[in-house]
């Protein structure tokens, strides 16, 4: 039983550590902003530019 709990705790800690390493890497190397700047926004801007808006004064 004790072993099982320890195993769960260990797994949980490993998951947490993995999550931490992953998120901290994203955070520290600014990966989310790089992705948004170089990939997401150019894609979205292309879409926005091709949109047909009901552009008029009234």
């Amino acid at each position, binding site marked *: 039983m004790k072993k099982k709990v320890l195993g769960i705790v260990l797994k949980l800690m490993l998951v947490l550590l993995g999550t931490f390493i992953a998120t901290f890497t994203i955070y520290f190397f600014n990966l*989310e*902003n790089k992705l948004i700047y170089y990939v*997401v926004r150019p894609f979205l801007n292309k879409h*926005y530019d091709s949109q047909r808006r009901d*552009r*008029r*004064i009234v």
Partner: protein
Amino acid sequence: MKNPITAFIDKKMQRFDPIWRAENGKGGQRSRYYDKTGIAKYREWRGTKDTFYDYLAWLNNLKSMGLMVASAPLPVLKGMWEYRWMGSYLGTFAFIDRLFEGFRGPELRIAHMNMHAIVQSLTKKIALVLSNDKRLGGGPLSDRMVPMDEVLPPLFMCGFPNLIPIPLQTLPEFIICDIDQQLEPFYIDVAESFGLAADVCSRCSAETGVTFNDDFPIIGKALLSTNMPCNASEATSMFQRRRIGLPDFPVTLAMIHNEPGAHPYSTQILRDAIKFIEDEYGEVYDWDALFARARQMNEQNEIELEKWDIFKTPHSALCGIAETLYRLYSWASVNGQEDYFTKNDRKVIKIMRRCYEKRYMPFGGKTRHRAFLWGPSAVYYTDFPTWIQNCWGVSIVLNMDSTMGHNMINTEDPEEAIKDLALFSEKAVMRHHAVGGWDNVNAVWDWAKNFDCDMVLMNDNVACKGMNGVHAMMEEQARDLGFYFIFVEHDLEDCRTVSRRDMRNIVNNYMSVVVGEEPLDPTLLDFDDSEAW
């Protein structure tokens, strides 16, 4: 005494610390960036403790954004696909990083507390608006929302507890222009393509472009517009009311608001506006509901006044943009409607008190000048106060817009309360000291003196006719009173007219030629961020 483990880590990581690099001649803040883009290669190492605090704040904001999407996944995705301005909100993380460059210790902690208050509020608002936007399919609250002009303080609307006042321009224009300098020029071009002159105020031009481009969410049954803060915002309302096509009521508060004769009129206008909403929405005004929210606003203002006392000293842990942006959002957009902000204020003031007692010096005591920031800021350069602190050691003690309505609202007598609200509302964003007569503008010197400032930075919106009209008088006053005084030219929301780099150069020239000082971080002196958000 410093923990040996963190000391070891900090030693190993110091090449990622821009402050250490600037102090040791090995680069600085700008060394982290890809040229022009405003995208950092890596985030700033602020020391182990502060880096982890910054990381946790990043996670916290990420959580708010996740909650936003989770609370209304389809409307948010539809909104992202429908509205150009929604795409710009993706720049929020980069925006926060920019704002708090060089922040350490308590000033970083407070800055993130304030910023998270904004993020959690704004994400909720985005989800709420998009899930009730009739363009995207509408929602159960669509007709309980009251679209109103962003510059009209919504506190008086709290007397309608069943209605939800939504500052209409806040999402597509008012907030997002802070985050992405590239967005509003698109809308300005749309407005100008219909013949609008290029020399009108770019904020209102952008709003007009949003109108013409049909980019406002469609909500509510009736519209409250306003004459605030000034001429162009009055004029753009003419287009907005037609395009939105709802019954509208212009809440035209007194322009010359510093005279006793103005307040009875503004009071009556508020009464008329309440009557209009009662008629259009079939609701009855509930004074007790108003009083409950007014108490929150009063407490926030009381805390604000205490903050001001600390600002007057060199020991304030709340500095620069962390103060300015928070006050702007919490006053103009929240205006007493959300308890979170009162709670946040209570926590912040506690930290500020502690720092003051310890005689804490923010920014490692490197502040050389204390400046009062006057005039509407260039919103495409929201991190200007951060830059001027990091580059030249100039601390922005208080911004003009932070002095907005800070009178207390009576919470017992409706007659007195509405009068207080009129006075409170007249002194709204870009209005308290920019509009309403020379005395309001000229008050800057007293403010600067009271806050122990040796410098006044005059944000000089090139399209603001009112502030252009006092140009030389202000310069002469500065000379006579012995302040360092810089006119920082900008074009409010159009970074193409006067770029961030141009703005920096104005300051650089003054600081090096007139004041004769050297920059704290030479990498910040001249750089290109023209392709940044």
